Structures are given as structure tokens and as C-alpha cells.
């Protein structure tokens, strides 16, 4: 069995988040011992669409989340379409096909909430460009558990409503442009 990861960074986004990820992901430290999870709203039939794209931008190996798969350090995990991704424990993921939450599956809120529960203050949550409000309640949970919460600067967001909602709700500890988010994650997670 692989070693337990040191910390978990969960990055969620919706419309317009890909261009942010393109700037953010290359900043991840190649030797990081943290695990990263990317949750982006996508069409329910998307099978492998997102993985090769994110993989090309990421300095660490990228892999699709599978049920009961180990949360390995130094890996970027991508939440699959048409499932909810849950952080079951510090060691492993779980998937579910339960009802959409805030019209979304995967729901960013569920990943953030379950990460807060499993990792407490060692969870970092990042909310990127998007519409709607999925992720805002989750950020609140991460903050309450003592984790760092970051949201994309609305001025830099293609679709600023989601980061704006997080800021209005007072749940974003830091508000940064994508490249700075990547650098911050490298500082926090090593």
C-alpha cells in the first residue's frame, strides 16, 4: 500500500475553469507529496475528454478517480463525469451515482465537504470560474475545519458569478489570479 498523502488540494470549477487550470496546474511542484483532485462540471457522457487535457498541463501524473482507489501522494486525480466523487477517508476515494446536487454530478460541494471531513485543516479548497453556486457551501465546510480556502479573482474569471458568490458568502480566505493560486498551492502543499 502506498503512503498516506500529506495534504489534499481540491480544485473545483465550472464554465471557464479550463483556461484557469491551464495557468494554475503547471505551477504545481513536480516533487510534491500532496494529492490533488480536480472537479469540473462536464457533460454526462464525457469519458476520457478531460484527462488527457489536464494531464498535458500537469507536472505530476494525472489519473481518473475510481471507486475505492487509493489517494496517492504526488498524483493529480480527475473526477469522472456522471458520478459524485467523495473523499471516503485519508486513504481512499468513493464514487456515488446519487441525485445531482445543485444540478451537478459531480458536485463540487460534496468533494469539498468530504475532504474537510477526512483531512480537516490539511484540506485546501480552490474554487475557480463558473456560474451557479456549487462549491460555496463546501468552501464554508473546509474553512470551518481549519483548511485554507482560495477562490479565483472574479476579474480574472471568464464566468465570475461562482467566485463572486463565494466572496459574498465570506468563505474565501484568499482571492487570487490562477497563476498565483498555483504558486500558493506549491507553498502550502510543498
Amino acid at each position, binding site marked *: 500500500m502506498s503512503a498516506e498523502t500529506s495534504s489534499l488540494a481540491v480544485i473545483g470549477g465550472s464554465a471557464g475553469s479550463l483556461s484557469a487550470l491551464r495557468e494554475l496546474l503547471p505551477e504545481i511542484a513536480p516533487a510534491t507529496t500532496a494529492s490533488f483532485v480536480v472537479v469540473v462540471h462536464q457533460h454526462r457522457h464525457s*469519458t476520457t475528454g478531460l484527462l488527457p487535457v489536464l494531464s498535458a498541463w500537469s507536472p505530476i501524473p494525472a489519473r481518473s478517480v*475510481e471507486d*475505492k482507489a487509493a489517494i496517492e501522494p504526488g498524483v493529480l486525480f480527475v473526477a469522472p463525469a*456522471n458520478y459524485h466523487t*467523495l*473523499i471516503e477517508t485519508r486513504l481512499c476515494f*468513493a464514487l456515488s*451515482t446519487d441525485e445531482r446536487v445543485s444540478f451537478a454530478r459531480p458536485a463540487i460541494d*460534496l468533494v469539498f465537504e468530504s475532504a474537510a*471531513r477526512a483531512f480537516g485543516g490539511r484540506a485546501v479548497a480552490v474554487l475557480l470560474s463558473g456560474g451557479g453556486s456549487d462549491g460555496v457551501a463546501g468552501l464554508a465546510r473546509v474553512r470551518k475545519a481549519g483548511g485554507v480556502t482560495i477562490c479565483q479573482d472574479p476579474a480574472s474569471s471568464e464566468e465570475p458569478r461562482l467566485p463572486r458568490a463565494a466572496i459574498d458568502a465570506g468563505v474565501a480566505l484568499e482571492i487570487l489570479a490562477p497563476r498565483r493560486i498555483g504558486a500558493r498551492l506549491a507553498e502550502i502543499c510543498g
Partner: protein
Amino acid sequence: MTDELDDIEVRLLLEAIYLRYGYDLRAYAPGSIRRRVHAALAKSGFSKLSDLQHVLVRESSVFASVLEDLTVRVTEMFRDPSFYRAFRNDVVPRLRTYPLLRIWHAGCASGEEVYATAIVLREAGLFERTQLYATDLSPAALQAAKLGVYPAELLREFTENYRESGGSGDFAEYYTEGYDAIAMTEALRRELLFFEHDLVSDQAFGEMQVVFCRNVLIYFDADLKHSVIRKFAESLRPGGFLCLGRGEKLTARDLELGFSEFDRDERIYRYDGARR
């Protein structure tokens, strides 16, 4: 309330359900079951899990509704069209060699995928020689599956999935449309066999050529998942197929029961027979 106390209360409720009614949800994956317990609590109108538990062990009608909330699964007709395409193209030709087919949908929920399989078999000309068993532990889900009535608002999604799955006909041939619902045709429904069956506590179901268990094992913990896979190995004829959901896979320990990968991406496994 702290997460630790919450965990304890959820476990106590599951223990009470097991002791009183015999449904064993204790080895369900904790994250999902916890969410469901809280959703059931919110629906029940009680403010504390201990209050719900008090009533639930005394009134079976309260239990019936909670059981439904704890076990309901959401699916679609032809969920993951690429899986059904692989099943049509690669599994169906191998099924043609059998004079009689026995196929089991384990954990069929409200039945959408059972009808999808029935449609694929019909279009392949194999439906007449197939016994299609569909089981679920939830009486309410099974009732819905038997009825085969679905909200009309899902029709577009079903039809789109059907086409993407390689459907060669017109999906409209398989249902009749009412005001706000569609009903699967009698021709499909009358050939299906529905049974209550709990994968945790009931025995294997024998001599199958195919077992579908898609997106059910994600709700079980790793040990329970393995013991259910063992039941599937006992249920399958050598050369038979096990179809899982896209996010699920057999571990090395599961494969040792006699399975090999048949379609890696679509999570179709072949049972080669028990290994010595």
C-alpha cells in the same frame, strides 16, 4: 455535533435496522450511507437521529420509507452509452452460441438498465431465448422496475442515450407515451423476471451467462464488495461475463476468483472458471 459523534449515531441506526428488520447496511461505504441517513432524517421531520431510531424500530411503515431513502439508486436508460455499444458489438456475438441465455441484473434499482438490456437483446434477435432476472433489495424499487413507467421529462435523455449506444431502431417503438410519463411496452415487460434479493445476505443465483451489477458495488465497503464478487463467480458459467459501472473495477484479489479483463475501458470481465 462533531463528526465523531455523528459517525457513532449513524452506526447505531444501522445496527438497530439490522437487529430489528434483518437488513444489513452496516458494511455500506460510510460516506454515501451517512449522506443518505441524513437525507432520510431531514425528510422524516425528526431533528435527531436517536429520535428517528426510536420510532423506526417500533413502526415498520416508518422503516419502509427510511429503507427506500437509504437504498434508492439513480440510473438512466442506457447509462454510459459506450458501455452498451461494447456490449452489443463484443459480448452479444459471443452470446449467440448459447441456445438459452440466463442474464442477471443485480441491484436493478428502478429498472431502466434492465429495459436497456432487453432492447439490445431484442435488436440482436436473442430476447426470445433469454431469461432476464432483475433483483433488488428494495421492494419499492422493484415495484417501480416492474411497472416500467418513467417521467416523460427523461425521454429526451433516454432517446439520446439509445442512439449513442448504437441502437438500430426507433426508440419510440419501446414505450407508449402518456400525459407526463412513458410506459415500457408490454412486449418487453412480460419477459422480465423480478425478485427481491439482498446481495449482502442472500445466496448466489446460478448458471448465468451474464451478470450486470453496475454502480451498485460503489455503495459497499471493500470487504463486502469482494464477498459479493465471490457470489457472482459462483453465479456465472465459465465463459460468462460480469459487467460493472465505469468507475468500478475488480482488484487483484477479485480477479483471483477466476476473472479476467475482457474490455478494460468499459469494465467488462470474463469469468474463466474457478482457479486452483
